[in-house]
């Protein structure tokens, strides 16, 4: 069985973490494959949603504890050893690719989401949780580094005060509480999770995908810009993208029907 199960079905690319016996803990090869898959998905106009999920009970408990596998060749020159252990380069490469992916990204959180699993969820656009899901980051407690993007992303998602609770205090957040602070967008019962997340994803996959990408690009990148720069950035993004679906949207509005977007 491959560690990562990648399926393309009907507008969607599903990336399934497939190490259920290890709570879907990530290895280096999984990180590199997720990074490559996400980057490639951007060139495929048929893919209109990228979904992350975990096989079995848990979404992802973190990175592999016992054996992360072989250090990726591309980082061969960048010291895997040292007193602090290997640097988090493969982890960062994966998280950066997911965060800047131009396609809509959705993380389906079941069971435990922890450590790098929380980074992966936070780098995605939408987080849907099952009622029994728990979000946490145990890395401080485990005396390991927290250097994979979460310290940048989480304060912007929920504010520094609540981010402190997760990262420094190590609180475990039940799905309902994560929902109330806006960290997850929907919570569904465990029984209906499969069905209701499918509806959510299908709705996303029928949106005008290029329009979505442009809005996402502005939002994510402008988090790091002063206000005046952001306005200029918006102008540049607008002037360099063509959204074909605009015509369909106008037609559908005139004809009083739902639009059928191509995603281009």
């Amino acid at each position, binding site marked *: 069985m491959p560690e990562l199960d990648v399926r393309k079905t009907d507008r969607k690319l599903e990336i399934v973490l497939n190490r259920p016996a290890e709570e879907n803990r990530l290895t280096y090869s999984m990180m590199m494959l997720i990074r490559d898959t996400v980057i490639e998905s951007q060139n495929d106009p048929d893919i209109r949603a990228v979904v992350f999920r975990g096989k079995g009970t848990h979404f992802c408990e973190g990175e592999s504890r016992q054996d992360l596998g072989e250090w990726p060749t591309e980082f061969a020159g960048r010291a895997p050893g040292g007193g602090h252990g290997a640097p988090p380069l493969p982890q960062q490469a994966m998280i950066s690719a997911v965060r800047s992916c131009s396609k809509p990204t959705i993380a389906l959180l079941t069971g435990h989401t922890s450590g790098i699993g929380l980074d992966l969820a936070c780098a995605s656009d939408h987080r849907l949780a099952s009622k029994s899901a728990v979000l946490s980051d145990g890395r401080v407690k485990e005396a390991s*580094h*927290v250097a994979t*993007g979460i310290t940048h992303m989480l304060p912007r998602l929920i504010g520094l*005060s609540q981010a402190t*609770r997760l990262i*420094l205090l*190590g*609180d475990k957040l039940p799905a309902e509480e994560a929902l109330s602070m806006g960290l997850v967008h929907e919570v569904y019962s465990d029984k209906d999770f499969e069905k209701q997340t499918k509806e959510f994803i299908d709705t996303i996959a029928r949106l005008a995908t290029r329009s979505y990408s442009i809005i996402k690009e502005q939002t994510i990148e402008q988090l790091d810009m002063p206000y005046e720069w952001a306005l200029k950035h918006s102008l540049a993004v607008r002037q360099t993208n063509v959204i074909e679906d605009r015509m369909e949207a106008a037609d559908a509005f005139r004809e009083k029907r739902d639009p059928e977007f191509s995603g281009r």
Partner: protein
Amino acid sequence: MSEGTEPLVFDDREIEGLRHIRLNNPKKLNVLSSDQQEQIIEAILQARDDTAVRCLAFSGEGRAFCAGNDIVGPSKPLSQYSQHQVKLQIGSGPIGLHKLITTIKDFPKPTVVLMQGFTLGAGYDLATSCDIRVATTDCKIGDPRVHRALWAAEGWSYKITRLIPQAHAATMHFRGELLTGLRAREIGLVHRIYNSDTDLLEQSADLLKYLVALPTDSFADAKRLLHMNLDRRFADSMGTSI
């Protein structure tokens, strides 16, 4: 637990590894004078360099954690800030308090504040500089300085929009409304709340013991990145995380 008449008490006895800074001027609701702020800075720096200290807690005796700066008492200029002195009848300015809240923010070990009664002005600045905020459900928390036509230049404008969603800043700062502990917990500013009639230190003992036992280096590293990355672009944050 109140004892002695010193307006500031530095206690190490309650929990091993905990340095506890108690404001002990309950008759004046623990308002902070410039001198006291300097003493607290000194104590924090000592605790920073003392490897036996693994967590820092602040609390106030009596009806309030801290009702703010001492705006009634004599506001004498501190010699080390003489170059910042403004020759107007508006006190010493925020320089001393700036140093206090920055020293707390940069403290590389867990910082906790226990709040009951009132946490206002300078007390609020102190509290929002700590990692973990514990309050009673009815504690009044906020910044009423707008109502006193006072400066409010002690860093809240940077911190509050990063600690909690920006929308709350208008209520708390433009209109100077006070939050209850309960409401502060709802919007995420406070991390733990307890009933008003309970002893906060007793209630927080488990939390404090937990924080004392955390791996100190790992905590320091995560805290440093969390604060540093507030001002960094994502790509930069990745580069500096190694």
